[in-house]
C-alpha cells in the first residue's frame, strides 16, 4: 500500500484495474469486503469504504444477500475516465522530465515508437 493516499481509494483503484484488465469481467462477482480485508491485511471498514466508492459510481452493484457484481458497460466507462487521467498522470510528467534532460519532442516520439516495437 502506498503511504501517501487513503487505503480505500487504493482498494477502489485495484478493483478498477482488475475490471480494466479483464480479471474481473462484467457481471462477475467481486470478492467480499472481508475477503479484501484479509487479502490486503487492512481493516474491513476501510475495504468496505473502497467498495462503496465504486457502488456509488455505478461501477459495481449490489445483489441483496448475494454480493457485489461488476456492472455491464463499466469497463468502457473506466477506459474513458482513465484516458482523461492519462494526460495529467503520465503524459505531463513525461514531457517535463524529457525537457529537463534535453530530450527533444522528436527524440521522445522516436523513443516511444522504439519502445513499442521492442
Amino acid at each position, binding site marked *: *500500500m*502506498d*503511504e*501517501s*493516499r*487513503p*487505503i*480505500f481509494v487504493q482498494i477502489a483503484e485495484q478493483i478498477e484495474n482488475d475490471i480494466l484488465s479483464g480479471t474481473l469481467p462484467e457481471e462477475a462477482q467481486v470478492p467480499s*469486503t*472481508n475477503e479484501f*480485508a*484479509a487479502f*490486503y*491485511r*487492512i*481493516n*474491513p*471498514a*476501510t475495504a468496505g*469504504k473502497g467498495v462503496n466508492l465504486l457502488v456509488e459510481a455505478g461501477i459495481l452493484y449490489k445483489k441483496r444477500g448475494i454480493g457485489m457484481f461488476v456492472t455491464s458497460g463499466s469497463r468502457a466507462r473506466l477506459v474513458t475516465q482513465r484516458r482523461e487521467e492519462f494526460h495529467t498522470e503520465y503524459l505531463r510528467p513525461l514531457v517535463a522530465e524529457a525537457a529537463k534532460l534535453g530530450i527533444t519532442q522528436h527524440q521522445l516520439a522516436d523513443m516511444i515508437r522504439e519502445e513499442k516495437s521492442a
Partner: protein
Amino acid sequence: MTALIEVNNLTKRFGKLAAINNVSFTVEENTIHGLLGRNGAGKTTLMQLLTGQEFATSGSIRVFGESPVENARVLNKVCFVKESQKYPEDFTATHVFRSAPWFFPAWDADYAQRLIADFRLPVGRRIKKLSRGQLSSIGVIVGLASRAPLTFFDEPYLGLDAVARQIFYDRLLEDYAEHPRTVILSTHLIDEVSDLLENVLVLNDGEVIIDSDAESLRGSATTVVGKRSDVEAFAAHREILHRDGIGGIATVTVARLSDTERSEALARGLELSPVSLQQLIVQKTKAPSQEFEQSA
C-alpha cells in the same frame, strides 16, 4: 454508531505525577483502535482505568454506559491481555485455556484449539518452562478466543517472532470480520499495525495528542526535500513538524498539502514523500521533556 467507551476529563495521579492528565475521548462500538505513544506515556494506566483495575483521581469513565469499577455487568464483556501477564508457574497452558470459559462467556474452545495449532504452542509444558514468545502467544490466544465485546491488547507480542505476529494480525482481522467487536491495541510496532486500525489515539505525557480516524492521518504530513533555499521558501508560514538537512540539502516535514500546493512544490523542483503513521507519531512525541516541564 454508539459510543462504547466514554471518558470525560479523566485524571489519574500517582503522588505528584499525573499519569493521565485531563483526558476526554470516546470509542465507537465495533472498531479497532490503536492506542499509541512512548513508554511511560500512560497507555497501560489508561487501560487499567478502563477495566476498573485502577481508581480515577477525577473525571468519569463509562464503559457500556456504566462505571467499570467492580461492575460485573461491564467486566464480563471485557478481556484485557496484558504485556506481563503472570500465570501460576506450575500451570500448563491447558490449565489457562480450561479456566478461560469461567471468565469469558463467549469463549470458543474450538477456535482456541485452532489458534494453539497456528502458534505451535506446547500446551502440556509447564508455564515456567515456556519461552517469552510462547507466554505471549497464550495471551494472544486468550484475547482472540474469548471473543469479548471489548478486548484490550497491551503490547501483546513481546518475544513473538515476525511469523507469529503476522498470524496474530491475520487471525485478528478474520475473526473481527466474522465476529465484530471493539478492539483496543496498544503497540510500539506502529508500521506493522497501521493498516489494521480504524482509529488512532496517541498519548504523550498523559495527554491525548492525536485522536483521529486512521484514514485522515494518512497523508496528513509530507516530507519536502530539495535545495535548502527552495525548501525554506516553500516551508515559510507553514507548520513544520520536523526539520533536517545535510550540506545544501534540506528536508522538512509539513502538515497536509493541497493538490495545488503539491504541484507548486513539484514545479519548484522539490521532492515530496509521504510520512508513515509511525514517523508522524515519532515526530509528534519526541519533543524533549524539558519543554513540557517548562510549559507545565
